[in-house]
């Protein structure tokens, strides 16, 4: 009898565990689907080309930044500096536009890489905790951006840059295309390259990766550099769309939006996994929920509360992993 009871309890636990695993794997897609269905039914002008385009354009910078963040989080780290790197990139852009668009954009990316190199070095070689290392860059990066720009907002008049902001190819905004390209690239990097698999291993068990001879420090350094470069790229496009370089406002709180997208997308903060598709869905989910609430004429504070609820739900669903 007791044996039977025990096995019934075991079975119930297994079913419960499997259900949670299922929710953890696919929860974000289900939630996204539910929001889309809700919008199709109740929100006016949702299924219009113009609206779809707007939503995609608005979510693109979050996606680009969040994909870099997802790789950092995959190594059990975090990058709080991304918003400030966007500002830094925006501040650098007008300085070099005189040399042409390509050198200017490259300099922005270099600035992002340098920021990532600094943060990554602190994490990989000095052993500073990622949250502290990148917090320093969050503060310092924006400060530096403001110094470079002399605290001024600069109008951008370069036609090529402006076309990055409002141009499109086959009806799809350049920005959306770039975000899609970055998503493919990161997915490829994570799944098909030695670097990507080592990244996941380092996040899954750093000590074991070291014993197995993996280049742990190089992997850590690289993810922060990539995250910095992607944030800088997002900064360029954001500036182009704004038609002005405004280092004091660009990228404010972007680190939080990016982390939200990654976590809601099912990438565990404990590291060891990178969910690229989940991150895209997570970013979309937050974007649509926000847009829906604004369309319903509810105050922005409601949107924030709902966003908080989504984060809590994502954390709740993932909670079992850590107690393993």
């Amino acid at each position: 009898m007791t044996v039977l009871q025990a096995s019934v309890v075991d079975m119930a636990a297994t079913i419960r565990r499997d259900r949670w695993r299922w929710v953890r794997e696919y929860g974000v897609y289900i939630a996204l689907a539910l929001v889309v269905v809700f919008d199709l039914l109740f929100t006016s002008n949702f299924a219009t080309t113009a609206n779809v385009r707007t939503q995609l354009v608005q979510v693109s910078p979050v996606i680009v930044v969040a994909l870099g963040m997802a790789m950092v989080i995959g190594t059990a780290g975090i990058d709080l500096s991304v918003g400030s790197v966007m500002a830094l990139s925006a501040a650098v852009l007008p300085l070099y536009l005189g040399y042409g668009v390509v050198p200017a954009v490259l300099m922005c990316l270099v600035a992002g890489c340098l920021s990532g190199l600094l943060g990554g070095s602190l994490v990989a070689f000095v052993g500073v905790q990622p949250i502290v290392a990148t917090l320093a860059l969050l503060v310092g990066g924006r400060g530096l951006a403001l110094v470079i720009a002399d605290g001024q907002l600069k109008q951008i008049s370069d036609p090529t840059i402006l076309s990055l902001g409002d141009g499109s190819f086959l009806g799809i905004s350049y920005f959306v295309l770039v975000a899609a390209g970055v998503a493919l690239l990161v997915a490829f990097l994570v799944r098909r390259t030695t670097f990507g698999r080592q990244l996941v291993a380092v996040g899954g068990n750093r000590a074991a990766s070291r014993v197995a001879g993996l280049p742990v420090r190089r992997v850590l350094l690289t993810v922060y550099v990539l995250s910095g470069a992607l944030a800088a790229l997002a900064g360029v496009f954001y500036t182009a769309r704004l038609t002005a370089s405004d280092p004091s406002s660009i990228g404010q709180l972007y680190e939080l939006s990016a982390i939200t997208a990654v976590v809601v997308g099912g990438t565990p903060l404990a590291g060891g996994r990178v969910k690229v598709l989940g991150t895209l869905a997570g970013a979309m989910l937050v974007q649509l929920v926000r847009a829906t609430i604004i369309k319903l004429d509810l105050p922005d504070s409601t949107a924030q509360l709902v966003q908080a609820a989504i984060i809590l739900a994502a954390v709740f669903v993932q909670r079992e992993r850590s107690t393993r």
Partner: protein
Amino acid sequence: MSETNRPVLEAIDITKSFPGVVALSDVSLTVHRGTVHALVGENGAGKSTLIKVLTGVHSADSGDVRLNGEPVDFTRPSEAQHAGISTVYQEVNLVPLMSVARNIFLGREPTRRGLIDFAQMNEKAEHVLTTYGIDVDVRRPLRSLGMGVQQMVAVARAISLKASVVVMDEPTSSLEPREVEKLFDVIRRLKADGVSVIYVSHRMEELYTICEQVTVLRDGRRVHTGPLLELPRLELVATMLGREVAEVRSHGTTGYADAGHDVTAETPVLVVRNLTRRPAVAGVSFDVRPGEVLGLGGLLGAGRSETVKAVSGVDRAESGDVRVAGRHLRSGSTGAAISAGIALLPEDRKTEGIIPELSVRENIVLAAMPRLSRAGLVSEGRQRRVVDTLMKRLRIKASSPEQKVRELSGGNQQKVLLARLLCLSPKVLLLDEPTRGIDVGAKAEVQALVEELAQDGIGVVLISSEVEELLEGSDRVVVLKDGVVVDELRGEGVSGDALMAALAAEPGTDRVRTSATPGDRQEVASS
């Protein structure tokens, strides 16, 4: 009945099991007032569990604990502390940033009008410390002091709790010899004050210096209890390990050596000279030849794991030279060691071995991934061919190569780790406790595999806490103690007897590393 004969703490027929293992089986322990009682046994003998039962961390399945003759039933550590049983752990677990005085009075600070009365607290702390001859500024933060002093503060805290019994779990493992002396002074004063001490340590010298009584545990049972001085060192070690003093090794060499192949003729594939990483490794030298299994013998804390970690680059050596096939190996880089052909199977499978969330396939190819890739691109086809071969060869039981490794049994996880090493076609394998915590079947398979690998010409370094495994698996055994090589057993000399003699040897006995013969050892044993 004299004062010292009164039992202050008694454990009677304690049984405690955890899922799958019986950790303690009818174990009794009697500690008399004002005595120091040694509790010894190899890893997993049940010492920690017994201590945890006595101090209220675990509750026993059956049996009684009596304090001053009264039955007690502690459900948490604070209850045991209030009743007068304090514990000093191996690692000081106090608050590093707080002052010495605050640490001593943590959780029961003297107060005035609801605020901590620092003046009174410092004064009281100073009083406790000076009583035991410890001279330290009680206002300094704990972490600014040496490990030894920190340990003293932990002891002072235990005493100030009005303890009648202080449990010390390997209190000297991080102390310098001078600090150990100081600790012993404190223990002697405790005895004079009628406080009893339960002393857990693997260091023979210390036990014979400070303890009167001894209780030996083995496999969760009490195998001996009595006055320590009536039990010579050699017998104590034999009792701990569960072997007869006269017992000689049944089979001395692997099949390779039996076949008449003299491995000693080969050039060593691994040469280690004066490898030092204090405090655990203090100048270790040994050679490993191709096709040879070299056992590293020694008790816990002798520096065996630390030695292989320093050789494999997990830890950076302070000094010394490691050569693989004649070429110097840069220290402190696991990548360099693996490129040179050294592969380590770490002691702790969970924390240093498997990547739990990755698949069996990815865990196996982890270290060899760059070799199985082209231009940084993963070729799953190539990986799968290698993985399939290894999974068959090692008989790894998994539903598929894509199953997550955390879902596998311990034995299969261990085989996955061995497969990871074999992917690298190593010249030298360092195996730290390759069969710990795996079932009997897998254990035999792993042992057979080790022998097979040696026959293929790989040099193997084997660490095992199981004497049988070490003796039967090794061609030669180098015995470590306190981070130095104290003896080397070879050929017919690879015997339990000889190993025990080496383990029990007096400190300062000068033993020449390579000239040890059974005769030599007998002399030491009887001295």
